[in-house]
């Protein structure tokens, strides 16, 4: 609980101003806490009078951090390929390993892995723990989770990172729970703090605030990392590393859930998360027909179309195209929003795009607050002209 010492509180209101949750208000010269308090501690840090205190209590689960060493990444492998996020994890993993002065290892599991482990070494891994077995052909939370948990228990890495993909977000939480380890989801920044702990930064409350999370008393420190946020190192084919080919007999690969079939449906165009250029439409398109214009522009630029939640809910376009809090997160080079007002829910999914162009009728639309270039105007006038002009230029 957040305690306020009435003797020390000066009623200055700094805590009220600093609370992102509106959970403190100063009444009659004294700060008061409301239900919304999430115990984030921001107010405690900012209180000059030292009047605020969060009773931390004694951590129940404690391990000795010194027993753990090394940075691990989980290299996701599905349908014959390593997921691009694995290389991004190696990129950040290298930096963390250097800061800690430890080795960087990758865990690669699946079936028919061929020499994919080599790619991980080229991208920065010092070691690869590889388990190639028919029992891992299909992804099951249980088998994959057992293998990873088993390896963590055996080798005691201090940090374990995985991509915040469907697979990573599905089985990593169970591994963390079984280890009694903390897990921070969907991180956008990772660094090593002065005390050697992993500083895990992630957007919270729909991207309105950023929170840095630490796990001082438990190991390993686990995090899933948003794809497309970290930068992969260029492959160095001369890099040397060790591949540990593990014996499946040592692991429990049994899974209660059985995969009966694995179906690939997403057409290439919906690979939104990887697109470099995204043309997104919102309510301003007025109807499903409005997407014809967007498709034309996207095709011209070699990009993908996307949509706000409102138009997906209205059934104008399918859910795989939805960008935002309840849809996909993208970070392309160029994001063009057409007729999107810029509700928080949407901004969260695209605000890390390099360049944002907004076209909207309403000059007060919040989207303009984050747009690199803004045009106040009717998209049905602007887009056809833009398409014509782009065509002329490329010719």
């Amino acid at each position, binding site marked *: 609980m957040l305690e306020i010492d009435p003797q020390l509180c000066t009623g200055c209101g700094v805590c009220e101003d600093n609370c992102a949750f509106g959970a403190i208000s100063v009444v009659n010269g004294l700060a008061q806490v409301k239900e919304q308090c999430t115990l984030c*501690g921001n107010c405690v840090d900012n209180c000059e009078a030292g009047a605020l205190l969060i009773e931390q209590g004694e951590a129940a689960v404690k391990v000795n951090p010194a027993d753990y060493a090394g940075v691990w990444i989980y290299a996701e492998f599905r349908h014959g390929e390593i997921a691009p996020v694995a290389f991004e994890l190696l990129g950040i993993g290298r930096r963390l390993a250097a800061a800690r002065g430890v080795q960087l290892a990758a865990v690669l599991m699946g079936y028919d892995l061929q020499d994919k482990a080599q790619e991980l070494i080229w991208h920065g891994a010092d070691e690869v723990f590889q388990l190639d077995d028919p029992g891992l052909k299909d992804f099951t939370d249980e088998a994959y989770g057992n293998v990873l948990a088993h390896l963590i228990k055996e080798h005691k890495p201090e940090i374990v990172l995985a991509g915040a993909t469907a697979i990573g977000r599905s089985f990593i939480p169970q591994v963390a729970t079984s280890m009694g380890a903390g897990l921070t989801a969907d991180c956008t920044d990772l660094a090593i703090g002065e005390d050697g702990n992993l500083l895990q930064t992630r957007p919270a409350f*729909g991207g309105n605030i950023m929170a840095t999370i630490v796990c001082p008393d438990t190991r390993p420190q686990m995090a899933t990392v948003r794809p497309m946020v970290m930068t992969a190192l260029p492959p160095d084919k001369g890099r040397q590393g060790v591949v540990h080919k593990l014996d499946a007999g040592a692991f429990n690969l049994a899974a209660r859930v059985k995969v009966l*079939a694995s179906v690939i449906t997403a057409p290439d165009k919906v690979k939104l998360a990887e697109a470099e250029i995204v043309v997104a439409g919102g309510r301003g398109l007025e109807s499903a027909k409005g997407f014809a214009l967007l498709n034309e522009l996207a095709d011209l630029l070699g990009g993908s179309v996307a949509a706000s939640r409102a138009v997906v809910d209205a059934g104008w376009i399918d859910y795989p195209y939805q960008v935002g809090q309840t849809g996909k997160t993208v970070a392309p080079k160029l994001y063009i929003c057409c007729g999107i007002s810029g509700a928080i829910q949407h901004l969260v999914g695209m605000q890390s795009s390099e360049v944002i162009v907004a076209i909207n009728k309403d000059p007060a639309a919040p989207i303009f607050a984050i747009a690199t270039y803004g045009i106040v105007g009717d998209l049905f006038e602007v887009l056809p002209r833009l398409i014509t002009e782009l065509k002329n230029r490329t010719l």
Partner: protein
Amino acid sequence: MKIIVCLKQVPDAKNVRLDPKTNTMSREGVKSIMNPFDEHALEEAVRLAAEYGGSVTALSMGPPQAGEMLRGAVACGADAAVLVSDRAFAGADTWATTYTLARAVITLGGADLIICGKQAIDGDTAQVGPGLAGRLDLAYASCIKKVQEVKDGVIIAQRMMDDGYDELEIPLPALFTVVKEINEPRIASLKGKMKAKKVEIKVLDAAGIGADPKLLGLAGSPTKVDKVFAPEARGERTMLTGTVAGQVTQLVEKLEAVLNA
């Protein structure tokens, strides 16, 4: 089939607006709602109970106000509602939350099936479902987009993946999380609302679920918030002006610079 559906009360993101000056969110007049993914979990629970027989208990951990949300769940078809509420739970991360929920499920005598939303829109961690399954040692699958059938103690369902879907056979007892494609949540009916008005919401505190106080709330959370800060404002912002034709020409020039970079 005894089904428990886990629900979370969250601030309605639709009403949260970013204050462009301070870059913090303005929560004025922000309502609390049922986490949208959980609405789909509830609908699926009610649908499965109706089709295959069984009961649905709505379970939430939260402040006393979450009771209203649970009434809403009863209005939409849940048979009973349980709120686990205690000041000791405050500041819980997903690890402490799954412990608390697991204790609550055990106190309620377990379940054949537990359904959760994929994630909550305030935290977006997507960890409580899998973590809870782990603690209760249940068969588990995430992101279910369709339940094809339930028979002979197994569920045949489709799990959404990044590139398509997997068809799964999940033996009961199990826990799965759902994505919004799975169904369309119903609107509470008149009779449902009348039932919800009268229903007694069972409230359990930390002692009521037999929880070890050390494992609850902030103290029981391995993850600690180190600091909270406003995201950096985006760099340069330019509003293009002039005629439509002029604006488009300026934009094309800027785009060329971006695309050729």
